[in-house]
């Protein structure tokens, strides 16, 4: 596990700049396109329009329409095309405008992209990244707000990455692009607007290494993506009450840094698992079972989880806000555990 800092395998400098999450992603794309001519972008309205969330703004001007390709509204076709191109050694990065629309491309992802390596062995690889703006909180309603990463954990052959900070967004996206496997890359829409210090210069962050957000001895909180930010806030709330919470940001779900989680739980004996998605069959369900298998002896109290309830995302902002787990929810769960 890496610590608080950004663990660059590249040459991160000790100078920092303040960037939006979107800008950090854009830098990752631009740097990788500069570095490797096989990298190109595909997606709806990412060129001329500048991207639904502005992530790719300016890249068309910088790299031209051959490498920043606006596509028809054809998710299945576009992802399929990208899988085909990847087999030939191209490194396409597809933007699926909302993660909800990845449903249309599931055949290509689950039956083709995820299977080639296994069926054809070392003769084939699929270096593909699918970027998915995900999550609720912007009143987009039931069909534009889902958090669907749990589905992809269930398909061997796929990697799943979900950064929580701008620095991680950049470093992890660069690693995802260089990876020889299909990677589902979650970008939480609410995080897009966060602005943070990130190291100057080029750096990558390896997939499968969790980040310890803060140290604490009383309870471990495991989260990723936007929920890692909520967990961090929860830890501050708890700190004021004298409860030491250790927050682990998973960064990627496949590969999963289970050792980092087990190490922390071994220390604290108590753990709260957090995700934005729905509860049943979710990421925490899997994490909880892994801890049951690998850290049972260390657990002093039952594993707790904080998730969305098993309901679709409602439109009304008041209802939507009540669905998404908050720092207060996480703190309450951790507090109850710490006091148990």
């Amino acid at each position, binding site marked *: 596990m890496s610590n608080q800092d950004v663990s660059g395998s590249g040459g991160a400098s000790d100078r920092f700049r303040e960037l939006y999450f979107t800008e950090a992603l854009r830098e990752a794309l631009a740097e990788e396109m500069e570095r490797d001519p096989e990298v190109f972008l595909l997606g*709806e*309205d990412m060129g*001329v*329009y*500048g991207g*639904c969330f502005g992530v790719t703004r300016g890249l068309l001007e910088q790299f031209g329409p051959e490498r920043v390709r*606006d*596509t*028809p*509204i*054809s*998710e*299945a*076709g576009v992802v399929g095309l990208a899988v085909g191109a990847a087999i030939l050694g191209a490194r396409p990065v597809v933007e699926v405008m909302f993660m*909800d*629309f990845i*449903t*249309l491309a599931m055949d290509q992802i689950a039956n083709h992209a995820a299977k080639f390596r296994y069926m054809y062995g070392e003769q084939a690889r699929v270096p593909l990244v699918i970027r998915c703006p995900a999550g609720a909180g*912007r*009143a*987009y*309603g*039931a*069909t*534009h707000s889902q958090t669907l990463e749990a589905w992809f954990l269930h398909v061997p052959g796929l990697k799943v990455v979900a950064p929580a900070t701008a620095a991680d967004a950049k470093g992890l996206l660069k690693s995802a692009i260089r990876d020889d496997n299909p990677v589902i890359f979650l970008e939480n829409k609410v995080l897009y607007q966060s602005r943070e210090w990130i190291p100057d210069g080029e750096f990558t962050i390896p997939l499968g290494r969790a980040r310890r957000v803060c140290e604490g001895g009383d309870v471990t909180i495991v989260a990723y993506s936007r929920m890692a930010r909520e967990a961090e806030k929860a830890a501050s709330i708890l700190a004021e009450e004298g409860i030491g919470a250790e927050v682990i940001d998973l960064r990627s779900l496949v590969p999963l840094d289970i050792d980092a989680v087990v190490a922390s739980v071994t220390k604290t004996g108590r753990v709260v698992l957090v995700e934005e998605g*729905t*509860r*049943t069959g979710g990421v925490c369900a899997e994490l909880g079972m892994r801890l049951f298998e690998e850290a049972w002896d260390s657990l002093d109290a039952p594993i707790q989880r*904080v*998730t*969305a*309830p*098993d*309901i*679709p995302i*409602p*439109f*009304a*902002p*008041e*209802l939507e806000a*009540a*669905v998404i*787990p908050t720092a207060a*929810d996480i703190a309450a*769960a951790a507090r109850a555990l710490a006091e148990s």
Partner: protein
Amino acid sequence: MDKTLLLKWFYQMKLIRTFEEKSAELYAYGKIGGFLHLYIGEEAVATGALATLREDDHLLTHYRDHGWALARGTDPKPLMAELLGRVTGVSKGKGGSMHLCDPERNFWGGYAIVGGHLPLAVGIAFAMRYQGTDRVVLSVFGDGATNIGEFHEALNMAALWELPVIFLCENNLYGMGTQVKRASAVPEMAQKACAYGMPTEQCNGMDVFSVYGAMQKAVQRARAGEGPTFVEAKTYRFRGHSMADPELYRQHDEVEAFRECCDPIESLRDHILREKLATPEELEQLERQAAAATEEAAQFAEQSPPPPLEALYEDIYAQPLDGPTAGKERR
């Protein structure tokens, strides 16, 4: 043409226009959240098309759906309330702008996944045939939707089984910021229906008479059991794709030119006055009525409460499952 009908159309189009302008205002004040796709400029399509349907016929549209609901006769008050996410909305605030519905008027939504409702429309047609009625279904979508797989699967099945569906494509030249010619291998959307041997009608979507005429033929065909028709209405949206659209992909001049030459409401006004079917004062009176109905709708919406928190756990299943919803205990 019948004067009462034309005045009704004028009122409907004006109601849509003022309703949309009001919702844009409420959005700007932060009272409407999420996405808001305005129908301004395209009013003649919904108005002309729905004038050809019977009350018991069915309607499905894409997310640019406020105008369709209004032209179908949905009360502006619960419509506006839905846009604000209020409990008095057509979907009790749980659907939102993109997912409107009014089953009482056989309006089955408001679909925010592009193209997803085309097979559903075919399904409704299939069921109507199965159940032995002579009703028809109108499925409305944009130019962008013709590039998605479900479009082609839906057209093929409808043609194959001669189902009573009208596929109405609102070709407004853009799918979000992408010009038709940058997304479609063929420039005329109607060409795509030819691949399935489906009759096509093209019409001027800025002209309510043109839309009405094309749709009449399509409805007649469907009702007579002669199968589906593809209607292409060439139209133009005067506003951005949604309120979030910075409109970097088209020139302001282009929009102004369309507003100038082809405002469907002004064209109808000119026609009515030219034919002396009403006086300018009578039309102004209708405009005032439309504005009043819109104001009333906005007030109703703003005064309505948001849905209660219990609503979160209602209607997940047709009958509630035994036991609490997983995760509910967190509240």
